[in-house]
């Protein structure tokens, strides 16, 4: 029977929700183990959070100074060392998982599946390609490990109702020194919800017109308690940071409510929001492709409509 190892994504303190979504994916097929590997400098807090996820059978804590920052070249040989006990190795389809899992697969001498959106048994999976314009069903061979990333927008996070045992594992693998972490720079957030897990997201596009005007998007988001996103055009134009980009090559999200302001809706953007509960579009152009997928469309000048909406939500 399938034994699944999930690579935890975390920042040293908190487990990223993508990990709990990998657990949910593994729980959709028959398994005899769902274990989580926590590679960290000091993984105590993260291992405890991982052990609490419903369905998890064990947590492997791999503490090492080299694991202080997540570097694929450093983590991959350690994951490979653990992988021999498992039939499946999963990671979230985030920049962390996308960076790491192909490296793990190649070191194991196997291919990798990207963006699992559903599992039909332990060896058969669906995944999107062509910017979500098509869904592929593939069968993986059973004679070698399945290394895969899990499309986080397709799964709900497993709940924290469990209490799995935690064991420690010492690193045997030789770790490379050719890759060095320098720093992380992040200038967004401002206490707002995380874009990838928020129940509500307000995104701005080219129509917003400038970085200054993007303030309007932030104001509406704050009124709704929402995270802020952006189209590629808005990020390319410097209105918003790259970490806010929603779409094929940015973040794929599934909020309950998605409000798109001044976004025409290129296919690459639509693929990032297809799983949203309700999509609202506000745009002056009645022909904008976003209206084809929007549940509620408002053809209006955003500079009139958005302040009016903020006012109406007044409270």
């Amino acid at each position: 029977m399938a034994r699944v190892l999930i690579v935890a994504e975390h920042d040293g303190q908190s487990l990223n929700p993508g990990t709990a979504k990998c657990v949910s994916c593994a729980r959709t097929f028959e398994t005899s183990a769902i274990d989580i590997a926590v590679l960290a400098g000091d993984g105590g807090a993260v291992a405890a959070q991982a052990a609490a996820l419903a369905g998890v059978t064990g947590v492997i804590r791999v503490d090492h100074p080299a694991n202080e920052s997540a570097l694929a070249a450093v983590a991959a040989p350690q994951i490979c060392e653990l992988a021999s006990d498992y039939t499946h190795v999963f990671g979230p389809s985030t920049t962390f998982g996308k960076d790491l899992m192909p490296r793990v697969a190649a070191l194991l001498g196997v291919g990798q599946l990207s963006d699992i959106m559903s599992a039909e048994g332990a060896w058969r999976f669906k995944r999107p390609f062509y910017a979500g314009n098509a869904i592929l069903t593939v069968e993986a061979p059973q004679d070698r490990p399945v290394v895969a990333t899990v499309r986080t927008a397709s799964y709900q996070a497993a709940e924290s109702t469990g209490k799995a045992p935690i064991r420690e594992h010492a690193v045997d693998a030789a770790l490379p020194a050719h890759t060095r972490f320098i720093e992380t720079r992040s200038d967004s957030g401002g206490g707002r919800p995380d874009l990838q897990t928020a129940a509500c997201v307000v995104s701005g596009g080219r129509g917003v017109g400038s970085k200054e005007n993007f303030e309007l998007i932030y104001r509406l988001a704050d009124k709704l308690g929402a995270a802020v996103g952006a189209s590629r055009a808005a990020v390319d134009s410097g209105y918003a940071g790259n970490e806010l980009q929603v779409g094929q090559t940015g973040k794929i999200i599934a909020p309950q409510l998605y409000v798109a302001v001044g976004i025409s809706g290129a296919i690459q953007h639509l693929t990032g929001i297809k799983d949203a509960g309700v999509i609202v579009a506000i745009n002056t152009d009645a022909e904008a492709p976003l209206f084809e997928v929007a549940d509620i469309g408002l053809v209006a000048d955003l500079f009139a409509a958005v302040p009016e909406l903020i006012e109406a939500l007044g409270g």
Partner: protein
Amino acid sequence: MTAINTILVPLKRVVDANVRVRVKPDGSGMALDGVKMSINPFDEIALEEALRIRERGEAEEIVVATIGAQVCTQQLRGGLAMGADRAILVEVGRELEPLTVARTLLALVQREDSQLVIMGKQAIDGDNNQTGQMLAALWGRPQATFASHLRFNGGVATAMREVDAGLEVIEVDLPAVVTTDLRLNEPRYTKLPDILKAKKKPLETVTLDQLNVEPETQFQVLGIEPPAQRPRGVKVGNVDELVQALRQKELI
């Protein structure tokens, strides 16, 4: 003497980013007959970056390579017109899985004694986002994925990476693999004289056999289907109606 003699830039021929592709009615594949084909946009960014590195005097030569049928020479000629020095076609009659592509690229890296591979983070058809990382693993060398800024100092590259949290800066020793994100640069337009000049640049054809690569197919494709369609929504006339609709759905 520069730190880098040869930069290898793999180019993939893909459906143009502006084409809305659909699944064939019989589900046997994508309807690609007669659609416009282009260099994968991320690969174009990779080539632009390589050109800038060479223009700064930090590299000697740029080789573009692709794996596919003869028709892919169109994209190689496009790469030569942009400014690459020479091109290699690895002639293959069918689509290869990323692991075999990575093995093929490794064979090219070794054949060309390349110190740097710059390539797209993903191809916009397969959307796998795997090949660069796999190549780096097989090569036993560093990877700087999703790069939005790249600088060299002797044998060390400093890359800024676009990650979920924002931007991350890492340092890697050469040789290395860099995969490109959208904001790394804006590729140049090719001019007509460059297109004519490209016709005279060397383009070599090799086979997988010559590179000692055995293609391997691991995943069996069972079907291709169109995605579920969202039901058609409604248009509201003004902000009040929008607020009403949101209240009705208990979203606010």
